[in-house]
Every structure is written in structure tokens, then in C-alpha cells.
């Protein structure tokens, strides 16, 4: 399968849209009319052909533009990539996993040739071709984790497992929904999720941690998470909040369906073989309300979910200012008819 990569921007003029097929395969997260946190983890097995779950790492039409945007973000703030010194094994694990997956699943675009520890990697869409010695950092232009972090869509956290918990000891974070790697690096599972409201009562984090500590090699898992973002902006970091926070004031009745984007994170977790660490992949998909309305099933569903959303979550997800406008715009699609369980567009 040969993909066509779009020329897009995720900042300034925001030249971004989803093609009709991109809309159809969007990972819409709401199977029901209500939403609350749950341990919605499932095996990250091979999904339907063309779906975002077909392969371990999904490469889509936004690939090249997203990698360019990563480069801009890192250049402005090198602190978006950080790795504590004991994470080098996990770094090589990450490189191996991502190179092998991409080369196997998208052979038209990526190739990996191995001759013992001498590896040749070619990334055609980004025009990268390198030879290096696996395990020898001096043969790569940068840390292995940063090297591949720049060439794979999404954000990545490398988790170290010790003291019966998981520590976020390395990260490559350029498209985060308002959390700071520089602040959170080195934190344990509980500290890191500290600010998420409601989950303590629900016991969600304890159960998820227990589950992940037992994650097996070769049996990755995934879940969806979501929030909403004004403009198709990948870098909604707290670091740059002064530059994007004000966009929330720009939403009005006329532009709400263009500006307000549903931001879905496909979160996948893989056990790593050498380090016994875990890579936590947070892949971001963006779609605006207008594109969602392509499918009445989705606009109706989203209307009901947003309308009934717990006030704490409206606040935590930063929706307060535009939530009524979004609900109002979506209401015109909702005839009140029952929608069967499921996230499918039609």
C-alpha cells in the first residue's frame, strides 16, 4: 500500500484537514451516549484492513507533516525529549520495535536491512538513509530514542518498572494534551496521574497499573482517550500555553465547527525485551466538528456525550469556554433516535 502524504501545518496558518477516507477511519471513541473514565484496555491486535489498528504503528496521510511539526517543536524547546541515564537499553528497544514494525508493515516507505549488528535504515517519505551499529550510540546522529521518535507519529514515554510501580524515565513529547514532560519526568505512576480528577474514587489507576505491570512481551495493549482542542494544533503543551490558551476565546457560533477539534489519543503499550521497560505510545488524531458531521451517527453521539459530561471533566479537559457552543452546534443533528452500541461511523 502506497500512502499519499499531505502538505499540512499544525500551527500558524493551520493548513490541515482529513480526507474522506481519513474521516471514515477516524478512531471515534464513544461507543455509548455517556462517558466516564474506565480501564478500557484491550489487546492491541491486528485490526481491520485500513483501520488505525491494522498495524502496531499507524502511518497515515499526515505522517510527513506531523514529523516536520515535531522537528519545529523540538528546535524551539529541546526539553521535549528527555531520557534519564539508566534508560539506554529501553532506547534501543524502542528503535528496534519501531524500525521493525514500520519496515514490515509499510515496505513501500521504510526498509530495514540487518547484517548482524550492522543495520541499514531507510525512511523514504522523510528522505533519511543511515547505517549504524545496533547498540552503539556513537554510530547514530543522536540518541536512538530521539532518532526514531522524530520518525514515528505520536508521543512516547519509556516506563521503567521497579519498586512495584512504573516510572516515566524517558519521553519524546511534542503533541501532548497539556502535560509537561520536563515536569513529570522521573515520576511514578501515581504521581504522574495525580491531577486527573475522579479516577482515585473509581480505582481506575490502581487497576490499570496492576494490569500493565503484568504486560507481556509480544502482547501489546491499547486504549482510547480524548479531549478537545481549538485548531488542529499538535503542540498543546503547558510550556506553550501562553501561545495557544487564548485561542479558546476565539470560538463563536459561526466558527465553532471549524475551530473545535475532537482530539483522540490512541494509547498503546508494548513490553520491551532488553530493558523489561514499557513504551507508552500516545498517538494523536484530530478532527473538527464539521468533519465529524459527515456521519450523522457520530454527530448525534458526540452531542449526547458532551451534553452529559461530568462538570469536573469539562473543567479538567479545558472545555469550559466553548462547551456550550459545541453542544449547541451539534444539537441540530440530534433527532433523539436511539443509537446502537458501537463507535462505527455508519
Amino acid at each position, binding site marked *: 500500500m502506497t500512502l499519499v502524504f499531505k502538505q499540512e501545518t499544525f500551527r500558524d496558518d493551520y493548513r490541515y484537514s482529513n480526507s474522506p477516507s481519513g474521516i471514515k477511519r477516524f478512531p471515534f471513541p464513544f461507543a455509548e451516549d455517556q462517558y466516564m473514565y474506565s480501564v478500557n484496555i484491550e489487546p492491541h491486535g491486528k485490526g481491520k484492513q485500513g483501520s488505525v489498528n491494522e498495524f502496531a504503528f499507524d502511518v497515515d496521510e499526515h505522517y510527513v507533516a506531523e514529523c516536520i511539526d515535531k522537528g519545529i517543536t523540538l528546535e524551539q524547546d529541546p526539553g521535549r525529549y528527555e531520557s534519564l541515564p539508566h534508560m539506554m537499553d529501553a532506547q534501543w528497544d524502542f528503535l528496534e520495535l519501531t524500525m521493525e514494525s514500520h519496515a514490515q508493515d509499510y515496505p513501500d516507505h521504510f526498509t530495514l536491512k540487518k547484517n548482524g549488528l550492522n543495520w541499514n535504515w531507510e525512511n523514504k517519505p522523510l528522505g533519511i538513509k543511515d547505517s549504524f551499529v545496533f547498540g552503539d550510540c556513537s554510530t547514530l546522529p543522536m540518541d536512538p530514542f530521539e532518532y526514531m521518535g522524530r520518525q514515528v507519529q505520536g508521543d512516547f514515554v519509556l516506563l521503567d518498572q521497579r*519498586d512495584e510501580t512504573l516510572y516515566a524515565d524517558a519521553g519524546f513529547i511534542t503533541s501532548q494534551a497539556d502535560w509537561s514532560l520536563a515536569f513529570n519526568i*522521573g515520576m511514578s505512576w501515581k504521581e504522574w496521574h*495525580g*491531577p486527573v480528577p475522579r479516577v482515585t474514587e473509581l480505582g481506575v489507576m490502581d487497576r490499570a497499573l496492576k494490569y500493565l505491570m503484568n504486560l507481556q512481551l509480544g502482547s501489546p495493549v491499547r486504549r482510547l482517550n480524548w479531549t478537545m482542542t481549538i485548531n488542529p494544533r499538535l503542540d498543546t503543551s503547558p510550556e506553550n*500555553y501562553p501561545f495557544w490558551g487564548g485561542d479558546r476565546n476565539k470560538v463563536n457560533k459561526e466558527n465553532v465547527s471549524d475551530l473545535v477539534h475532537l482530539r483522540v489519543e490512541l494509547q498503546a503499550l508494548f513490553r520491551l525485551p532488553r530493558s523489561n521497560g514499557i513504551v507508552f505510545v500516545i498517538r494523536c488524531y484530530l478532527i473538527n466538528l464539521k468533519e465529524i458531521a459527515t456521519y450523522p451517527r457520530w454527530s448525534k453521539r458526540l452531542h449526547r456525550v458532551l451534553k452529559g459530561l461530568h462538570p469536573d471533566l469539562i473543567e479538567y479537559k479545558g472545555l469550559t*469556554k466553548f462547551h456550550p457552543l459545541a453542544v449547541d452546534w451539534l444539537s441540530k443533528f440530534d433527532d433523539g433516535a436511539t443509537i446502537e452500541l458501537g463507535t462505527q461511523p455508519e
Partner: protein
Amino acid sequence: MERGYWIRSKPVYTSLVWHDKATSHLLVAQGDGGMAVLKIFQLMHPKQPITVLYACNLNSKDYAKTLKKVVPEGLQILNSEEDVLLTLNNILPNMSMGMRLYVAGSEGFIWAASECAKKFGIEDTDIMKELTGTLARSVYCVHCKATTHDITTNIGKCCGCERMLFVRDHFSRRLGAYMGLMVDAESPGILPEIEEIYP
């Protein structure tokens, strides 16, 4: 704040209590932390070797005189918090397995001492900590990455970029600081009331 709401990254401090299985004890204290040291000696004078490092500060009572009477051995009175940390750094290489570390003072001091101990493989969960004298916070600005010390209000000015920062209850042990986030990014110049809540 909603009742029952609690951010899990905020450290919990207790009173210093002796670890009776320790092979030696190292206590470091600053300012009103001197009182915490006196308190723990009220509990017991342990048999194992003891080292105590103490410096008073401008805002606190000076406990040096009383400490000299109470601490049976190994007391070093130092001139400043910096000297305590420097001395800690110098004596840790000579300590052996089984030594327990106790820290008492302001939150900034506690985490500066933890950071120092970490270099020698002592995890912060193994350090006994007592917060004394002040609730003042160190605040890390996520925008410019500067840390501003001794903030006693809900909103404080960043010493680096001068933005007004909301002090979030989210704490990083590695940075020894709370998260500071620009408070008026969405509505420039409009600030909530500034109140002293960490006196």
C-alpha cells in the same frame, strides 16, 4: 477546593521517628527543623552512631544552643542552609549501608537534601522528612523552566520570565517544586485575587 480532592503527587510529611534497625543515623535540619531534631531526641537517644547537621535561618529561632545540650555526639552547627547541604554532600561518601537519613526544615530544603542523597543511591522513599516552620513553596515555571523559591501565595511572579504563575498542587520530587502555569494566558492582565495560602 472540592472536599476529598487530593493530588497524589503532593508529598506527605510526617514527624521524625527513629528507625531502630538502623546502623547509624544522619539528621540534617534547617531553621525550625531544629525543633524536629529536639523532638526526636525526646523519643529516644539511640545507641547507634549519630550525626546531626544544623543551621538556623533568619526567620526561625536558633536552636543551636539547645541542640548542643541534647545531641550526645556528632553535632555540627553550620552557618547556612547551603553549608548544611555541602557538608551532607561531603560526608555521605563515608556512610555505610544501614545508615538512615532524616531531614527537617522547609520544603525547599527537604528536597534539596533529597536530591543530594539521590546521587549516593538513597531513594527519597527511604528518607524520613518533617516539614517545619513554613509552607512556602518552590515553583517551577513550565514556560521558562526557572524555579522561584519561597512563594507563599496562590499566584506568584516567576523570577525568570516574570509571568504570573498559578501554583498547582502538582509536585515533582526531581525538581523539588510545584508546577507553575501562567494564570492569565487566556485573559491577559486579568488575575484572580492573590492570597497568602502558604505562610
